[in-house]
């Protein structure tokens, strides 16, 4: 099978299980983002793929070949570190040529390849500069070019954009994604920034406590989160208890929602409703009734906090799509079955 496969990978540090029985298949040419809060095991997983850490048990396969115990330097990969780890004693060109020099490529080929890579990252003519003279974004690109110099089988990035300011980060996300699509290289990025993951990835892998909670396309993760952790971690959401009676009539906060189905046999479940799916209406008319407690007007969007039966619900809408409401006013909250995502326990 072409691509990367992790099979029952476990990593223990003493009694602590950093990565717990992870199974993951990354087809060739896919862009995968591992997303999770700090300490969720995503960096440890990346380091095991790179060979910098050895799994306690389990296997890592690349293109069908077991590479679990292949030393890092024989894996032919490219990795960008959070600190970038550019060599301070080498120039931009020497940094990029390092993997070629180590492999004994002829001087002429090295020079040619460095020029190609520099033009790819829009830094033509920078070969002889010391890395200390570059800006943050330029260093970022040099680190990427160095990792791609040998056209590696796997491109790994550990929080690559975290050192950049917000604007530059957003621009680099787009650039990185376009570069990956152009080269068609299997890429794995570790990040804690869900916006970054949504922008770049074909597949987002949400991790927590050393386990994969969900691995799916960004839109699938957003629309159909598997559990309350994923729903809450990816974007903003309202997590509400739903109850079902023996006739399978589902009520949410005491209000019947016709057409909503809970899993067979379940009397209770948590549902997730995205704030942009919560529609405010006039009170009554089959909807939940609540009181507006706070309005956050951000100009482009307006967040309205509504208290319904003791629970806070957030609704987000554009200014034009929302009725004028003020704090203390009674409003109706319309819930339709298609916006309620029933979560796995």
């Amino acid at each position, binding site marked *: 099978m072409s691509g990367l496969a992790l099979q029952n990978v476990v990593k223990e540090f003493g009694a602590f299980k950093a990565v717990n029985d992870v199974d993951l298949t990354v087809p060739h040419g896919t862009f995968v983002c591992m997303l999770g809060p700090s300490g969720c095991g995503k960096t440890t997983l990346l380091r095991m793929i*790179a060979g*910098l850490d050895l799994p306690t048990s389990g296997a890592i396969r690349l293109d069908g070949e077991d590479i679990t115990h292949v030393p890092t*330097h*024989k894996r032919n990969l490219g990795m960008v570190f959070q600190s970038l*780890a550019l060599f301070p004693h080498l120039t931009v060109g020497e940094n990029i040529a390092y993997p070629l020099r180590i492999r004994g490529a002829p001087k002429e080929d090295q020079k040619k390849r460095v020029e190609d890579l520099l033009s790819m990252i829009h830094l033509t003519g920078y070969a002889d500069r010391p890395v200390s003279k570059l800006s943050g974004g330029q260093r970022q690109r040099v680190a990427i070019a160095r990792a791609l110099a040998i056209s590696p089988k796997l491109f790994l990035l550990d929080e690559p954009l975290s050192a950049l300011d917000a604007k530059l980060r957003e621009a680099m996300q787009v650039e990185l994604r376009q570069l990956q699509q152009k080269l068609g290289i299997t890429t794995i990025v570790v990040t804690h920034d869900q916006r970054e993951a949504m922008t770049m990835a074909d597949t987002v892998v949400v991790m927590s406590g050393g386990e994969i909670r969900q691995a799916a396309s960004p839109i699938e993760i957003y629309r159909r989160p598997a559990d309350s952790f994923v729903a809450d971690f990816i974007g903003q959401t309202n997590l509400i208890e739903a109850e079902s009676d023996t006739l399978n009539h589902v009520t949410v906060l005491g209000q019947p929602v016709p057409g909503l189905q809970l899993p067979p046999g379940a009397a209770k479940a948590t549902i997730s409703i995205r704030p942009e799916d919560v529609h405010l209406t006039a009170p009554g008319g089959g909807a939940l009734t609540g009181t507006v407690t706070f309005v956050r007007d951000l100009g482009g969007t307006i967040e309205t906090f509504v208290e319904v039966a003791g629970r806070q619900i957030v609704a987000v809408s554009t200014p034009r799509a929302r009725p004028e409401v003020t704090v203390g006013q009674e409003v109706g909250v319309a819930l339709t079955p298609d916006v309620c995502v029933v979560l796995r326990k």
Partner: protein
Amino acid sequence: MRREPPQTFGDYSPLLFPAAMLTIFFVVPFGTMIAVSFFQRQQGGFYTPAFVFDNYARFLSAFFGGVLGFSLMMAIAVAICCVVLALPFTYLLTRMARRVQIVWLVALLSILSLSEVIIGFAWSTLFSRTAGITNILVALGLMGEAKALTPSFAAVLTGMVYQAFPYTVLVLFPALVRLDPTLTEAARTLGASPLRAFFTVVVPALRNTIVATLIMVFIFALGSYLLPQLLGRPQHWTLSVLITDQAIYQSNMPFAAAMAVFLVLVTLGLVALTVIAGRKGEAA
């Protein structure tokens, strides 16, 4: 933040104490020594103030020139041996657990508490025929019969490297601790074996530290005068031994002073050359 340069006399006052100490304990004695190096020696007595070059002229003989050359060569050999041994050692040490590091550093610091005399006699026992390490090799069947390893050049070198090694580690340690460990990891992901990563990344990234350490150990080794006498033959005696001999046993203070001044000048010259060479290398 921009700092104003010191303006008034008061701003410089924190420097007064170190300046006074440096003047009283370094500038004055060294000035005296320079002066004495031009004085006339009194046969059988002490010296009288004069301004003669006899002492320097006597020094510029083949014999003393040879001793000077040997001293410099010995100090360079000690410096290179120390750095070659201490660099990988310290690198591995900084990658160990904190507790292991502390045990090693305490052990190294305790070597510093040993005087040159104790180190000298300990090694002369270890290198002796009757009680030395060759007896262990004989017991293991690796050698036919025990033999004395001292006096010899290798014995002097071993003793001096042993004495300077803890200093070398202590000077290299902070720089290696500060070195970003992801640099070597990056080198490994880019295709370098751990050994190549060490030589292509760690060593060049620490070039300035390594040069500074070489100079420090070199100067430290130049001053050693007991170990060459305890572990070496007369031809292994360094200039420091001869200076001590002239100053204390021959009572020829002017000649000893002249040799000392010459040694300082040559040392400064070599250090300056190293620094200039280092700058050139950086520019290239």
